[in-house]
């Protein structure tokens, strides 16, 4: 796969596994559907909050977390459909400039959970350009596994906000289902940060 081949797409599971292995301490918020499965398949972690709904909420949720935890790196890992539902959140991120937030969109150009209908990113919308136009200057498109290392360095640098559109293949992968109990996930996440229960 050539880095400059516009048709190139990377395996999403391999990409996410490599990214998360390089960011073991980052706080991770995953958008519903495949990004949650990808993150879980890479290894469950206390510092991951998986969404199973609230479509469009991954980026603003990660923003609230990033503002609350300025000394931690935060990753919002989501898909093109979820990101499209909350495009305005990219403008909100740009306005508030959280240096510790990296938004990673796994873009397969389809709604994978509902029967692989084409999404807007396959029909002309350029997500990284949207992010840049919103004011996130560090917005890139990547197509290779090696790019996971570069994104991990941006996460660690906390010089964001940063946005990465990762062109992934639309293969049908086995589902890897993380816990669905939101209260459990919330309590586990807060406990990992040393936050006392209510």
């Amino acid at each position, binding site marked *: 796969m050539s880095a400059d081949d516009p048709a190139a797409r990377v395996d999403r599971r391999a990409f996410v596994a490599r990214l998360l292995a390089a960011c073991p301490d980052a706080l991770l918020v995953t958008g519903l559907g495949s990004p949650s499965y990808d993150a879980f398949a890479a290894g469950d972690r206390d510092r991951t*909050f998986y969404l199973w709904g609230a479509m469009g909420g991954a980026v603003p949720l990660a923003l609230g977390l990033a503002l609350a935890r300025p000394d931690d790196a935060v990753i919002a890992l989501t898909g093109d459909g979820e990101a499209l539902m909350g495009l305005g959140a990219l403008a909100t991120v740009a306005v508030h400039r959280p240096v510790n937030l990296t938004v990673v969109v796994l873009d397969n150009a389809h709604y994978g959970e509902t029967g692989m209908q084409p999404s807007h990113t396959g029909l002309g919308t350029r997500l990284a350009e949207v992010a840049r136009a919103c004011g996130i200057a560090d917005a890139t498109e990547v197509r290779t596994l090696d790019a996971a290392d570069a994104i991990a360095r941006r996460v660690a640098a906390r010089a964001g906000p940063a946005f990465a559109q990762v062109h992934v293949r639309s293969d049908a992968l086995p589902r890897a289902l993380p816990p669905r109990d939101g209260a459990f996930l919330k309590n586990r996440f807060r406990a990992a940060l040393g936050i006392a229960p209510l």
Partner: protein
Amino acid sequence: MSVADPAPWQERIFELLEAADVRQVAYVPDAGHAHVIRRVQAAPRMRGVVLTTEEEGVALATGAWLGGQRAVLLMQSSGVGNCVNMFSLLASADVPFVALVTMRGEHAEFNPWQVPMGRAAADALSAMGLAVHRVDRPEDVGETVGAALDAAFRGGQRVAVLLSQRLIGRKEWVTG
């Protein structure tokens, strides 16, 4: 009511947010919230977070809570409708939450387009599992907002306070 001369209840809301250690104040602007927004912008320990749509504030408050901070959402009644599906996040993850909602579509409303969502706001909030408290008199604002902050951040509840249009006063659309 002018920029230079806010109503005492508006200053009281700011004081309560500050005293409750609310650190993130998300908002889509409304004239009724303008004083609090200005005060938050000038407060060193608080961050005003302007949103493109109110539902971002529901997710933002959840993220803040995950990270150990308290957040509230300021919006107009029209914004309640924008939040409906995102409210499921609060129930699913059992997250404390406070929304302060300035009402439109009721007392002396000039704009008929504000009426449908104004009428539906309380029911929509209730349907999504939030406790709804309405304030009609200036002298009740402090007690009601203070109780909402306690119910959320001490009691773990999800609460909306509706600030009636009569509190805010008539909007001057035309002169003469």
